[in-house]
């Protein structure tokens, strides 16, 4: 049985919900969340329509609007409720429109084995010395096959400034074979890259 409301404490007046989307005000569907907020909360297998909406907007963004799109993605990246699938999605978007501004946010993720692959997905496609430096700086932080993947990205990017660091890895007997082999292939690739 429901308790009667106390006369001393009148019930609060329901707060009127106003949607950002005018069409929703008459749909009865309630407030529609901002896809840019929701995309970082994506779960594997769950509804991905918000992420899809963001993807469509990122793709349609003209060159002059990419910086703004990047900012919105970086805000999503910093979301406290960010999921693993959400991180992967945001990084896939940054792989398309990310620039130097994204590097400070992605660099710590690159150094963490739990997030390095997603960060690498974005950073490998971001040109420029800032991203190159992030890859080189991450070398001491990773081990095993995560380090091998990182080294592979350095090779793919053609960062000739990493040659000496990779040569040291290749010759380090304490490194596992998968890492040394990655360094060998990356150095072979860098040998043909323009300095």
């Amino acid at each position, binding site marked *: 049985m429901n308790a009667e409301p106390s006369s001393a404490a009148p019930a609060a007046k329901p707060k009127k919900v106003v949607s950002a989307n005018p069409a929703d005000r008459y749909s009865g569907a309630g407030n529609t969340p901002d896809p840019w907020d929701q995309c970082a909360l994506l779960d594997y297998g769950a509804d991905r329509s918000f992420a899809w909406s963001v993807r469509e907007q990122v793709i349609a963004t003209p060159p002059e609007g990419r910086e703004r799109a990047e900012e919105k993605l970086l805000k999503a990246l910093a979301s406290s409720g960010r999921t693993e699938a959400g991180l992967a999605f945001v990084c896939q978007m940054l792989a398309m429109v990310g620039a130097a501004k994204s590097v400070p946010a992605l660099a710590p993720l690159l150094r963490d084995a739990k997030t390095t*692959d997603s960060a690498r997905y974005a950073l490998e496609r971001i040109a420029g010395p800032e991203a190159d430096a992030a890859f080189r700086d991450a070398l001491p932080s990773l081990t095993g096959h995560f380090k091998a*993947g990182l080294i592979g990205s350095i090779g*793919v990017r053609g960062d000739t400034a990493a040659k000496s660091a990779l040569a040291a890895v290749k010759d380090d007997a304490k490194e*596992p*074979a998968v890492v040394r082999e990655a360094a060998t292939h990356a150095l072979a690739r860098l040998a043909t890259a323009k300095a």
Partner: protein
Amino acid sequence: MKPLSPLTRRQFLQNSAVATAVVAAPLILPSGLRGQNAPSKKITVGIIGCGNIADGHYGPLLGSPESIRVLAVCDVDRARRDSAAARVNKDYGNTDCKTYGDFRELNRRADIDVVFICTPDHWHALIAIDAMRNGKDVYVEKPLTLTIAEGRALVDTARKYNRVAQHGTQHRSMKRFHDVAEFVRNQGLGKLDRIDCFIPPNNRHCGATWQPEPVPANLDWEMWLGPAPWRPYNSKGCHYNFRFISESAYGQVTNWGAHYLDIGQWALDMDDSGPVSVEGHGEFPSSGLFTNCTNVNFTVRYANGVPMHCRTRFEGGGTVRFVGERGWLDIARDKMSASDNNLLREMQAPNKKVQLELSNNHHDNFFACVRSRKRPIADVGLGHRTTTVCNLGQIGMVLGRKLQWDPAKEEFVNDDVANRLRTRAMRSPWSLA
């Protein structure tokens, strides 16, 4: 990223042991040691990927025991590799065919000459490159690779190590397609107006959401994913259906486009080049596990002004149609028609000015080239160019805007986003380096 499972840790340790051996050993085995050019020598084969697409290879491979010997099979699904080995062993009447769960172990067997790569698309490039670095010739199922960058890396590796590398576009070894390409090349249709490629629709469907499922005991899911971004296992997102998920493939654009767009490339003499623009507007699902295009519609245009359209045909199957000032020719695997039967008769006339190489059997052609060291009928160089056309269509539809393409530089003109989509980073420890 999920932590590695205990199984995967063991697998990784095994892999590391293999890699150690590789670092210590020369990457290339001297071909003279294997004597693969000797006509009397049996060419030894390993098959990597034992699913649906490999089924078409057992007949030709097991049907020539006097010259070909399958020594090993590899699949990340134990049930599939065991079944494949049983099939080989039954045919040979012995138990010699070995099984592997990791392609690197098979690629490092010194007694194997050639490798057939029949895995999901996202694995093609890495396995082929690894095989060629280890002295194998390769037959790579279509599409050659998932991305444009992978294709270029694969071709460069084939050239660097002087490997024979066949793309699994067997239309190149079907006389009907050869004759049409040659006829068009000789202006048989007069001035060519356009090429229309029709590809079949997606033949699997899924719901708007999905649930992670336990990985079957027989499957190494981490290795199945390999370079693809991590996701939990779901039975609808694995065998066969991988082609509908953009992390692994580009749907029918690459599955069937690799065949029919390839004939357009052949007829246009574009085996070492490609179109100069693409424009497309496909329909992609906004929900569910499958992410690839459900209704393909794009046009690539060549420097001579000829457009090649590619569209989904929901009934009637795949076909390629050449339309010129003298009429049209429509050709599929099982039929051919024309606007005028005289065109079909003219097509058979001998002594054409331009004569294209004729191969009547894709496997025979490949093995003959393994012995002769000549480039096969569907060399990976042209396979890469055709797969690039598929990729151009995919990227054009994803971006939904007209793109200019420079086939010499293999890059889009003044479109940074499109250029970024030519490649993608791979999950650790994999990379294209």
